[in-house]
């Protein structure tokens, strides 16, 4: 990868330790992905915000970094571990809360927009088509490439951080038009067509595909299903984009047998003690739809509903908070199902969710069972 004189100087530490570190990350990724140069990016979306995922190592790293680092471009962030307004209702220890606040402060000191959301594509105005961005959150990177017509690689927490600090990213993979054409098509050949099936399809596609995949035979791909597809794909693989319709090259079917195999891997329990909705977080459209679906019914079990803070005002104005509260739902802002410290295996044996991504991390990270079913089934079976 060729660097300009200025970039070389920064890599050599002539502009300080922070930029040297950022360029060291960019150079390593550049080598890994066979980039020819660094190019400007306009927006970085960072992961690595939840203390539960980054731990003391991450908290100390960010605290040190924030002493002199400033973000150079628009920078937004993923969910953190809890919603500060309701944290006292949960059994979280002081240390967790203090360290999470320290992470939040470090990011704010560096100039972040404190969005704490995994759906930046839904809550921010998008730049013009083809704009290069640097999105770490995997569902957001896939959504940005596939639906929002932006260009990003499936960035890591550190590669997006390096982009935020330098305004640059290596020119490779999905940033290059030539590599965006999928070499594999997955044919959707199963029913029912709901967000759960699309999440499972995403999980399957992520395992099979390289950086880009074509998906054919889709029906009823609404926003909920689309987000579910992106999140499933981001969880299982390194694939960072899909196109709709049959592409060139190899074709494989996602049929009932394949769907069952994926579901058996992720669905580990026949029922659950609590329900979580979100991962990705629910946007206003999904909240409104949930309210409509619930009309008059209420959850039989505790139900946590994860949303971005950005829609809190609208949720209140439209009275959705009262309606969902009345139905036994708890809306939580700034956080999400994935890697949540709010679900503790000492209190909960299994969680009911429609999120394939949530299912993977609840099992591996929280160590609880998962009953995976569609929102339609959740409302049918878990409300009265």
């Amino acid at each position, binding site marked *: 990868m060729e660097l300009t004189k200025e970039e070389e100087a920064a890599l050599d530490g002539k502009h300080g330790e922070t930029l040297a570190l950022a360029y*060291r990350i960019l150079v390593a*990724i550049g080598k*890994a992905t066979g980039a020819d140069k660094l190019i400007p990016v306009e927006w970085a979306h960072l992961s690595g915000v939840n203390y539960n995922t*980054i731990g003391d190592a991450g908290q100390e790293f960010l605290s040190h970094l924030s002493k002199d680092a400033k973000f150079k471009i628009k920078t937004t962030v993923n969910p953190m571990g809890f919603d500060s307004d309701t944290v006292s209702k949960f059994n979280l220890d002081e240390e967790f809360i203090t360290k999470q606040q320290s992470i939040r402060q470090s990011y704010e000191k560096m100039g972040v927009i404190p969005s704490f959301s995994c759906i930046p594509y839904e809550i921010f105005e998008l730049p013009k088509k083809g704009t290069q961005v640097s999105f770490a959150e995997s569902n957001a990177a896939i959504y940005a490439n596939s639906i929002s017509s932006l260009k990003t*690689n499936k960035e890591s927490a550190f590669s997006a951080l*390096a982009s935020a600090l330098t305004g640059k990213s290596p020119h490779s993979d999905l940033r290059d038009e030539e590599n965006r054409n999928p070499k594999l098509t997955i044919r959707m050949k199963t029913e029912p067509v709901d967000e759960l099936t699309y999440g499972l399809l995403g999980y399957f596609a992520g395992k099979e595909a390289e950086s880009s995949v074509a998906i054919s035979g889709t029906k009823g791909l609404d926003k909920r299903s689309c987000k579910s597809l992106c999140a499933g794909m981001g969880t*299982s693989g390194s694939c960072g984009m899909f196109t709709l319709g049959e592409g060139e090259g190899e074709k494989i079917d996602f049929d009932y047998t394949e769907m069952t195999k994926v579901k058996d891997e992720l669905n580990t329990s026949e029922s659950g003690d609590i329900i979580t909705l979100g991962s990705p977080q629910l946007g206003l459209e999904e909240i409104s739809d949930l309210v409509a679906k619930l009309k008059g019914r209420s959850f039989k079990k505790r139900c946590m509903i994860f949303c971005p803070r950005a829609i809190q005002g609208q949720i209140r104005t439209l009275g959705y908070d009262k309606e969902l509260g009345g139905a036994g739902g708890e809306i939580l802002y700034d956080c999400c199902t*994935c890697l949540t410290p709010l679900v503790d295996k000492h209190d909960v044996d299994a969680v009911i969710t429609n999120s394939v991504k949530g299912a993977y*991390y609840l099992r*591996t990270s929280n160590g609880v069972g998962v009953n995976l079913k569609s929102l339609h089934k959740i409302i049918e079976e878990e409300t009265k």
Partner: protein
Amino acid sequence: MNVKVIVRGKVKGTVLCAQKPVNFLGGIDKKTGRVRDEKHDLFGKFIGDKILVFPNGVGSSVGAYTIYSLKYNKSAPLAMVCLHADITTASGCAISNIPLVVAEKKDYESLKDGQEILIDAIEGKIL
């Protein structure tokens, strides 16, 4: 064998081979380095102080912090050898100073569990 250097360094150690890709965030305990994904072929094994040989990293972008945490908690692999280096693994190794190399398929497949190797991720060789 000749390898492509992604993160520089030189280290000697014992090979631990994974058949499946690794999701660092969900799959590995960041404190102990134990593989906690029961569906993974390395389930129950510890990746610390080994030379981890695996096809590539998958899943969450926060996996890069898991690699950094493993180093901080002294449970990190000595070095990593991949078939395709992904952005999460490359950036995690870069920030943690863990040597990372990419091997050609036939060389990659010749690496066996328990084998003692020297990774020279300066000259780009495995001996």
